[in-house]
């Protein structure tokens, strides 16, 4: 190891870094700040802005720290008189045509140009000519506005599209003083990753339409939470203005998950939180009409209605759990059904995938395993649509030398990156997987990573799982099985299913009867308790309780509507599709009149004369850690800010015969309940954000 290290000094500080490290990175390691505009740590260096200029002893001219690799014995000076003078001159050049409209610029207050001008600039310009003027507020895409005057031509945005997302949209037009950012003619920049360019723009040249002029940075408080819009679980900072209004999401870099980037669905999926259409009071059906009621009335009515039908049999009360609820909420709902409602009739409209408790070998892959893999096999997956940041991770791995084998039945943006494609027929999974094992690409001894979309198991889960396990066996090379992971579609599908599986196994054994599926229920479903999702309600259903943030079509059919808080107001944990348990933190208080799902479940149980031991999400999580085998030993402290993958059981299941008992039940549930015309996300994005209450006095 020692021979790979290079010794150099930066500002007199001795540093030892691996060979090939850039001077800028070496300085970071030595905790010496060298300013950068054009360089971005996740992308290749360019050396366009020159602000990182340093002096290297023995070299005739100054050099840029972001493009120069270290060399043995190098002596770098980043802030001696020569380097400082040069940097001040560069700063002066950068500011020549910058409009200095900082008071009306969205970046003002968190702008690198402002900060570095103060730190390294001269303070007074000698430029006396008129500034260059260019177009302002140019609409270049669905989410982005470009201000050409503010642009310092660092090209981060252009390179992000071309190099990182590999989805070019922004380009440099013209040369020299006429150079500017633009799009291809008549081609708006509508990439689903376009929001990242706003975040990485070092000045206010690219601004987000949704955030534009909504707030100034110093008014914002950031909450470290996670994105609830897909199962990747990207880490975000939720910026809240004046403690009330969520005004933007930013990436909170977690290299294990998102590599510091977000998709636009996640980045802009917050406007519904501030919607004026949110429910703020419980509703109770009286004489056929939904009328506002107090919480006590509504909870009493809900409890009464559910209790009235509970005696009809174990399946009389059906509970439907959204796959976007937290683990704690799902766990408590399972417990509520088991111990209070006496009904095992609980389901979540999720897809099918092999549960980690039963099939650890089909849940072994982490996102990080993509990097350094030799072969990536995607089965039926379209991550661009369903797990966009996973798509970025795949592209990154491919740039790192991995090969992609696509088993596909529809076109996706990854087609052009695939080294091999195999037509997939979901009804004949075995044939496609056999073809994959025979594919020339599969004949390598390196790391093979397989990700399958949950929909391939939709038609026949047990057979599909068997085929996948067979694939694991056939792709095992040199004793090393391939790493396999499921790609689900909703943020906490994995966690909710694991919680429901666990509550069935654990809590159910004491009080009520064995797990009853709808088909076994004597008198059929008579009451439905729907939490956080939409579902088809049978005509003959007597009593419906809906717990949601909006008056959805399902809620309009309900007898009792309980207004619930959104993810931005809730605390809990999510389990991502790679099995990473991460914490969701509340950015704001629940909208007055609404309560968090967890609080409502606890209150409803209390109304049904059942006092749960756990009254907060921390306590529920402790209960989960004690009761759910996969989560044994986890604590909120261990999860920290970046989460951790829940450990997999080491013992493999005995045989294929012990398929999870709810496989059939799940399938029926999906077929009947998967009626949502669009995922909650589209609702989120379409809701307008116009809520701006005045300052209370």
């Amino acid at each position, binding site marked *: 190891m020692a021979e790979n290290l290079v010794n150099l000094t930066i500002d007199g500080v001795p540093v030892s870094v691996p060979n090939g490290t850039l001077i800028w990175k070496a300085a970071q390691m030595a905790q010496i700040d060298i300013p950068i505009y054009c360089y971005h740590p996740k992308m290749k260096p360019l050396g366009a802005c020159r602000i990182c200029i340093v002096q290297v002893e023995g070299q005739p001219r100054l050099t840029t720290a972001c493009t120069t690799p270290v060399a043995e014995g190098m002596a770098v000076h980043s802030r001696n008189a020569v380097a400082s003078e040069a940097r001040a001159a560069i700063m002066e050049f950068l500011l020549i045509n910058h*409009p*200095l*409209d*900082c*008071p*009306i610029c969205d970046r*003002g207050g968190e702008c690198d140009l402002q900060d570095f001008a103060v730190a390294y600039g001269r303070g*007074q*310009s*000698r*430029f*006396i000519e*008129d*500034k260059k*003027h*260019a*177009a*302002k*507020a*140019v*609409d*270049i*895409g*669905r989410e982005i506005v470009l201000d*050409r*005057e503010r642009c310092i031509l660092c090209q981060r945005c252009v390179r992000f599209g071309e190099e990182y997302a590999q989805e070019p949209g922004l380009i440099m*037009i*013209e040369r020299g003083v*006429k150079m*500017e950012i*633009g*799009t291809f*003619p*008549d*081609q*708006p920049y*509508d990439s689903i990753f376009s929001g990242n360019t706003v975040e990485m723009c070092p000045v206010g040249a690219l601004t987000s339409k949704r955030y*534009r*002029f*909504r707030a*100034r940075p*110093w*008014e914002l408080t950031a909450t470290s939470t996670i994105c609830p819009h897909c199962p990747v679980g990207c880490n975000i900072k939720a910026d809240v203005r004046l403690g009330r209004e969520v005004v933007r999401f930013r990436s909170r870099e977690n290299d294990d998950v998102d590599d510091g980037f977000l998709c636009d669905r996640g980045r802009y999926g917050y406007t519904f939180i501030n919607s004026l259409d949110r429910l703020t009071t419980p509703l109770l059906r009286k004489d056929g009409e939904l009328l506002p009621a107090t919480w006590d009335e509504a909870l009493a009515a809900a409890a009464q209605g559910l209790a009235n039908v509970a005696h009809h049999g174990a399946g009389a009360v059906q509970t439907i759990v959204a796959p976007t609820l937290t683990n704690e909420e799902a766990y408590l709902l399972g417990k509520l059904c088991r111990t209070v409602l006496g009904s095992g009739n609980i389901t979540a409209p999720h897809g099918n995938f092999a549960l980690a408790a039963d099939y650890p070998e089909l849940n072994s892959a982490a996102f990080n395993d993509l990097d350094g893999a030799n072969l990536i096999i995607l089965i039926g997956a379209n991550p661009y649509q369903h797990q966009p940041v996973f798509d970025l991770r795949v592209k990154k791995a491919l740039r790192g030398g991995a090969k992609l084998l696509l088993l596909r039945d529809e076109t996706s943006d990854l087609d052009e990156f695939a080294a091999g494609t195999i037509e997939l027929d979901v009804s004949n999974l075995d044939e496609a997987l056999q073809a994959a094992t025979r594919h020339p690409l599969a004949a390598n001894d390196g790391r093979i990573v397989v990700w399958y979309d949950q929909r391939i198991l939709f038609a026949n889960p047990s057979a599909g799982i068997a085929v996948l396990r067979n694939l694991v066996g056939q792709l095992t090379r040199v004793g090393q099985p391939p790493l396999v992971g499921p790609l689900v579609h909703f943020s906490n599908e994995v966690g909710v299913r694991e919680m429901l599986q666990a509550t069935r196994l654990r809590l159910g054994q004491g009080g009520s009867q064995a797990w009853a599926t709808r088909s076994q229920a004597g008198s059929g479903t008579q009451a439905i308790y729907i939490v956080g999702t939409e579902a088809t309600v049978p005509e003959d259903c007597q009593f419906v309780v809906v717990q949601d943030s909006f008056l959805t079509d399902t809620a309009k059919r309900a007898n009792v509507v309980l207004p619930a808080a959104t993810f931005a107001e809730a605390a809990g944990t999510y389990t991502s599709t790679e099995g990473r348990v991460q914490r969701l933190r509340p950015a704001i208080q629940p909208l007055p009149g609404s309560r968090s799902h967890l609080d409502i479940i606890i209150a409803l149980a209390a109304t049904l004369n059942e006092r749960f031991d756990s009254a907060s999400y921390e306590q529920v999580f402790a209960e989960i850690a004690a009761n759910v085998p996969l989560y044994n030993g986890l604590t909120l402290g261990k999860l920290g800010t970046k989460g951790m993958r829940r450990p997999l059981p080491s013992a493999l299941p005995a045989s294929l015969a012990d398929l999870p008992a709810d496989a059939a039940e799940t399938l029926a549930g999906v077929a009947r309940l998967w009626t949502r015309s669009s995922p909650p996300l589209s609702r989120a994005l379409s809701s307008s954000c116009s809520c*701006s209450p*005045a*300052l209370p*006095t």
Partner: protein
Amino acid sequence: MPRMFDTVKGLGITLSHIFRKADTISYPEQRRPHPPRTRGRHVLHRYENELERCIGCLLCSAACPANAIFIEAAENDSTNPTSPGERYAATYEIDMLRCIFCGLCEQACPTGAVTLEGETELVSFARSSMVYTKEMLLEPRGTATRGSILAWAAPAPAGADTDLHVPDSRGQFDGAWTTAAAVGKANLPVNPSAQRPTGRTEEPQP
């Protein structure tokens, strides 16, 4: 014995005061003029072209130690702008019960839009009516005063450049609408679209 004369002496002082001119005035019929730097009720100023000076930058609310100013900014309609530049204050409220009349907002304002003026009689029967809205604070159309900002401005030394807001060494402003808006020099003819340079390339309109 001398004490008797003390009483007479004291009464003499009293008598002498009776004939002096009184210090008090009969407020509210009579009022004294306030000094020019009095910090009373705020005024939001306009340019002579009737555009609002305020650009909704929120620097006043950031400077406010009493958290009395609430602003929501919005994007100007470029054909019918409220203020020069791209941004204006859609909501501008000052809670006069919170305000401590320190004048930091006036100092923070880059455009001279908000000043504290001589009006000090701020009373109401209801707390809610003490939140002054933008409509209450704005000076009427057709007026374009600078307010107490002129009274506070220290006289510049002889020969000094008095126009240093625009950061070029000539101290001159080059006519760009947005820069002008940001530094309070947007007293330009009302047709900002004519002042805005357009891009050389045709922009896609998605």
